[in-house]
């Protein structure tokens, strides 16, 4: 039986988590901090996939909610507390609330109109960050203190510690996304992707299903933003630019829409191509490299990395009895 999200094998998942957790012991400081940023970006991509792949709502707004989480965490760090757990809670809640306010209008639209509305939301948040002085305007938000895990605790300054915090937030966010996708709500989200009309015909309000999905995805993106801030201790409007939203969507396509874990891998491929491969070996050609990666993905992996993996594992379709 072919399942779109596939079945994760517990032993495989555990092995992957152990390998990810061991990264700070195996690599130098810079690759570790790069890994932490990849995890934060991967969680934004997971939230993008929850909407795009699972619910059938291609979106360009997730990086905006990521920015809300990142800026909220930074402001909390500067003005209130350096506690990372508080920052995570505030950033997640703020992004979820903004997703609720904007989603009330956005999810009334569908298809290309929805895509354009989410582009507008993302750009609006980007412009607000770029203009408001208390957010640092175009200079970005600076002076964010290193976070702590508990009152009076040691600040997490070393790359390995902030990486582990990002890993924890990533795993939490990914787990929430999986639980939602496998829940009765997740069933309705998959059904609304297939046919809103059919879902309405069994008594469900597609508006409510889409709005709840939009809020959850926004909150997860906000959590990713707080993990970003914990590592960089600096947030720039450039982190919320349209190009980042486009990369998030590209990562979903590359990884395999609707699988959640595939887009997370897609995010790592995109991020490593841009910030490691291009930076070290093809300086100034990051966009060209990403373009080549995308073209290769379209031709070689039309269903994405996860789609390729699933098709290798799946059984042949059942022909069924004569109709």
């Amino acid at each position, binding site marked *: 039986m072919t399942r779109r999200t596939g079945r994760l094998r517990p032993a495989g998942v555990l092995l992957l988590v152990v390998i990810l957790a061991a990264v700070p012991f195996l690599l130098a400081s810079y690759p570790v901090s790069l890994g932490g940023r990849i995890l934060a970006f991967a969680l934004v991509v997971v939230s993008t996939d929850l909407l795009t792949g699972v619910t059938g709502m291609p979106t360009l707004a997730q990086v905006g909610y990521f920015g809300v989480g990142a800026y909220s965490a930074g402001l909390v760090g500067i003005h209130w507390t350096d506690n990372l757990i508080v920052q995570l809670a505030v950033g997640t809640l703020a992004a979820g609330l903004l997703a609720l306010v904007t989603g009330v209008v956005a999810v009334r639209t569908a298809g290309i109109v929805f895509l354009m509305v989410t582009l507008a939301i993302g750009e609006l948040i980007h412009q607000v960050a770029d203009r408001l002085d208390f957010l640092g305007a175009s200079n970005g938000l600076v002076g964010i203190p290193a976070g702590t895990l508990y009152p009076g605790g040691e600040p997490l300054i070393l790359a390995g510690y902030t990486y582990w915090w990002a890993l924890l937030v990533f795993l939490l966010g990914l787990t929430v996304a999986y639980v939602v996708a496998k829940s009765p709500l997740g069933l309705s989200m998959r059904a609304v992707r297939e046919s809103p009309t059919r879902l309405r015909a069994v008594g*469900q309000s597609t508006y409510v299903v889409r709005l709840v999905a939009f809020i959850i995805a926004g909150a997860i993106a906000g959590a990713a933003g707080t993990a970003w801030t914990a590592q960089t201790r600096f947030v720039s409007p450039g982190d919320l630019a349209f190009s980042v939203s486009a990369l998030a969507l590209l990562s979903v396509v590359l990884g395999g829409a609707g699988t959640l874990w595939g887009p997370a891998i897609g995010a790592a491929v995109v991020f490593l191509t841009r910030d490691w491969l291009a930076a070290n070996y093809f300086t100034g050609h990051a966009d060209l490299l990403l373009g080549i990666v995308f073209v290769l993905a379209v031709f070689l992996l039309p269903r994405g990395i996860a789609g390729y993996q699933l098709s290798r594992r799946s059984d042949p379709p059942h022909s069924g009895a004569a109709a």
Partner: protein
Amino acid sequence: MTALLEVVDLVAGYDGSRVVDGVSLTVAAGESVALLGRNGVGKTTLLESIMGMVRPTAGEVRVEGRDVARKPAHVASRANVAIVPQGRRIFAPLSVAEHLQIAYRKGGAWSVADVYDLMPRLHERRDHLGSQLSGGEQQMLSIGRALLCSPKLVLLDEPSDGLAPAIVEQVRAVLRELASTGLALLVVEQDLRLAFDVADRVLVMAKGQIVHESATPAFRADGERARRLLGIG
């Protein structure tokens, strides 16, 4: 009998056309009605307008006195109307069990176990995806999904369409059993044997309007009129 469904002067269509052109009809609680007519006379559009899947431009649709016209389909569904659409329209990536779970309502008249009892084949195939089912299994699933919405009225659009004769017999048996439980049915059907077997009353549509109404035995008794109305032979 009390009218469960009342349709009054309903007009509906696409891009300004009047595919359904002033239809009025009633279905009583527990009654089975066959809606017959040639292809393209507006039967499917009428059912979808009642359900809210097509937005009527004029007229009223009342279910137990509650107006559901021009409201989204989930309003009609919550007013205890369910539809088994033409072509089954199942969700390809969801399993049989997931289809039933998505439609199930707590406290409703039907449970998933009831549906499996009525159609054991669905239980055997409960872990298979919609796309992996045969046409007959998809039709059973579509009926099961509708029943879990706890309807008092089920709209069925060509339930035998594209099915092998043996499967049509199974569908007929299921519909007869449903009719015997007191569920009201409004059935659009090209297979007259199935329609006559299930329905208490026959409505005939032509050019978007109801042009004939009679009890099923009376309709069957006048073969010449039936052939003329339905364009047979």
